[in-house]
């Protein structure tokens, strides 16, 4: 029942590595046998990906650990970085977290081990976020180009046109309420990443940071009109009761999506898999449309979510770790087969995303619609977008201040003003020179 790893750990902890023998313990294995590379990641169905890698790389053995999802994973990673030991060789890190780990001096530059060769392989926006100049801090894996999921059957039934602009979206919200007083156009999910994606799609570029050029300078501009119009519109819908208030991914929100309580969800490239797996009653009734635009006929796009592999500075063999980060997914067909069909990742490898097997895939959940035909152009259209080196703080400001607005504790109009003020104070307190 107890695996050998478990016993080995126990023995290793007690016997081999005394206080004085620390140095003797840290080293990678001997000359013989494959180099072991530890990986922390929480991708679904990741085991098969690791097995595929190990089968094709006789010189490297990946040891995978699921150290928790999201916040738990980062908490452990940050603790291990602070302690100076205990971090894995390769860690999964989401895009918005990359600058945070860079400024903590946690990430190795994979450019030193040839990772710059991969530049052409990935969607440009993703490569931009993963690198800083010729320093390669992360290898993109999956992304979240945004589009609008909607209940096609209900929209058709009530003759409501699918919104192509946000103004039409607001009109549709009123009509939906009229058609069914218990229904909402969507829910305000209290998710910093989602709000960020909507602002991105509005052309808002609130942050700017480059560790290489000026590590103590950061741009914060959450109050630009492109940012504020997003919050104003959504806040108005919430205040009028046209948009619900359930946090995303809770059982309540899932049930609401599956029962006709929400008619749309402005979500991302990974959502089709999420919806198909969790909604049983409404299979075949949903469809995907491009995001509503702020200006009719425009083509502004945004991203919600996505992740990368990074190599930590504690990696015993950074070169082997770089190989792992680049090739776990990378061009591996076996890995992407699992990634696309079982884990429902949206691939940031351009060739995989352009492959007819992906773009041409018809989804039963969307009544046979080839939804990736919508997501792929969005990903290609995504431009430059930067994050701060303290994005956790920014997201919790966005969450907490909009939660206050949602519950009547402040006006929606003041959400971004207050967040801007608090983020600037925090940034200055952390020693940054802040520009707008």
């Amino acid at each position: 029942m107890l695996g050998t790893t478990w016993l080995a750990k126990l023995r290793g902890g007690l016997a081999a590595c005394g206080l004085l023998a620390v140095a003797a313990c840290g080293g990678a294995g001997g000359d013989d046998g494959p180099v072991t590379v530890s990986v922390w990641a929480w991708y679904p169905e990741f085991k098969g990906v690791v097995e595929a890698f190990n089968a094709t790389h006789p010189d490297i053995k990946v040891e995978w650990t699921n150290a928790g999802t999201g916040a738990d994973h980062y908490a452990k990673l940050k603790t291990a970085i602070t302690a100076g030991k205990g971090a894995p060789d390769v860690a999964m890190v989401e895009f918005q977290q990359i600058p945070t780990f860079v400024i903590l001096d946690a990430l190795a530059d994979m450019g030193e081990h040839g990772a710059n060769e991969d530049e052409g392989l990935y969607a440009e926006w993703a490569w931009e976020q993963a690198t800083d100049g010729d320093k390669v801090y992360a290898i993109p894996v999956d992304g979240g180009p945004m589009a609008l999921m909607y209940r096609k059957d209900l929209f058709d039934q009530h003759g409501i046109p699918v919104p192509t602009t946000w103004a039409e979206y607001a009109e549709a919200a009123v009509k939906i309420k009229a058609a069914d007083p218990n229904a909402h156009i969507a829910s305000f999910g209290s998710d910093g990443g989602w709000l960020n994606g909507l602002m991105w799609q509005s052309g808002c570029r609130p942050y700017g940071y480059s560790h290489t050029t000026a590590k103590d300078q950061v741009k914060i501009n959450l109050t630009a009109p492109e940012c504020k119009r997003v919050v104003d519109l959504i806040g108005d819908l919430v205040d009028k009761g046209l948009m619900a208030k359930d946090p995303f991914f809770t059982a309540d929100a899932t049930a609401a999506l599956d029962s006709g309580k929400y008619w749309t969800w402005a979500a991302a490239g990974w959502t089709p898999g999420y919806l198909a797996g969790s909604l049983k009653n409404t299979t075949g009734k949903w469809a995907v449309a491009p995001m509503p635009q702020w200006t009719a006929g425009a083509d502004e796009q945004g991203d919600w979510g996505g992740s990368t592999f990074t190599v930590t500075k504690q990696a015993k063999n950074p070169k082997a770790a770089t190989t792992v980060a680049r090739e776990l997914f990378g061009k591996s067909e076996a890995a992407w087969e699992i990634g696309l069909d079982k884990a429902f990742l949206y691939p940031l490898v351009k060739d995989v995303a352009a492959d007819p097997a992906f773009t041409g895939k018809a989804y039963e959940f969307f009544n046979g619609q080839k939804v990736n035909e919508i997501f792929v152009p969005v990903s290609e259209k995504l431009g430059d977008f930067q994050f701060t080196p303290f994005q956790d703080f920014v997201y919790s400001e966005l969450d907490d201040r909009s939660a206050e607005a949602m519950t009547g504790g402040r006006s929606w109009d003041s959400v971004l003003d207050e967040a801007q003020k608090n983020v600037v104070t925090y940034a200055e307190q952390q020693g940054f020179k802040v520009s707008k």
Partner: protein
Amino acid sequence: MTLGRGENPTRVKTRLPHLLMGVGILYFLVPLLWVVVAATKSQPDLLDSPALWFAEFNLFENIGQLFREDDGAYGKWLVNTALYSGLSAVGATALAAAAGYGLARFRFPGKRLFETALLGMIMVPATALVLPTYLILSEVELVDTMWAVILPSLLSPFGAYLIRVYVDESVPVELIDSARIDRAGELRIFWQIVVPMMRPAIVTVFLFTLVATWNNYFLPLVMLSDADLYPLTVGLTTWFNTAQQEAGTRMLFNLVVTGSLLAIVPLIVAFVLLQRFWRSGAAAGALK
């Protein structure tokens, strides 16, 4: 309910308490009943059927799936939890028993200071200690091993205090003195005379430290990263997060619920079976 309408005093005497207790039983039991009922439901029924009533009986399928998921992770977590809490409780109880006896029946330098400090020890917030403890244990390469959970759990200032109070009241000093006259060694006196006499206090401390480690979440969360070493609390939370964030690929709510049920049952059984002991031990803490 009004009193004193000329009713039979004994009936008044039991009617009000029974009413109170009836309401209490409902309040404390309903959430637990929910867990029991929910554990018998399949994932779709969990979301669709009435909360407090049975749907299709799926308990055994859930338990089967529970022990198969992630290559039998739940079984490992269960064994780990039992091992961590068992070892911690035995160790903490032994340390507390010796220290409590030492404080109750001996005089030595620094004793008063140490006793005063006991109360202060339990006021330290956990968040203040987890990180430095992590840094220290990582220096000796114990992070991400079972010892990172067990060693810090050995500390039970309250256990030491409880034992001290109990010894003070229940172990006559004359008995120890006469044993000394018989030239018994101090260790033998402790083992053969004192320990048997303070069994209720020992069971109490054992159970309380067992529960504390069994239910601990924050310490193992930070200390462990290898899922094979997780205790139940951390493992189940991982599944819950997975169920929320990757619901499309893995709907695990039924497993989280069934796993929670199996995680609480052993403790409740232990408390019920051992209640005679721990109740008199707890009484020592409350009374003397």
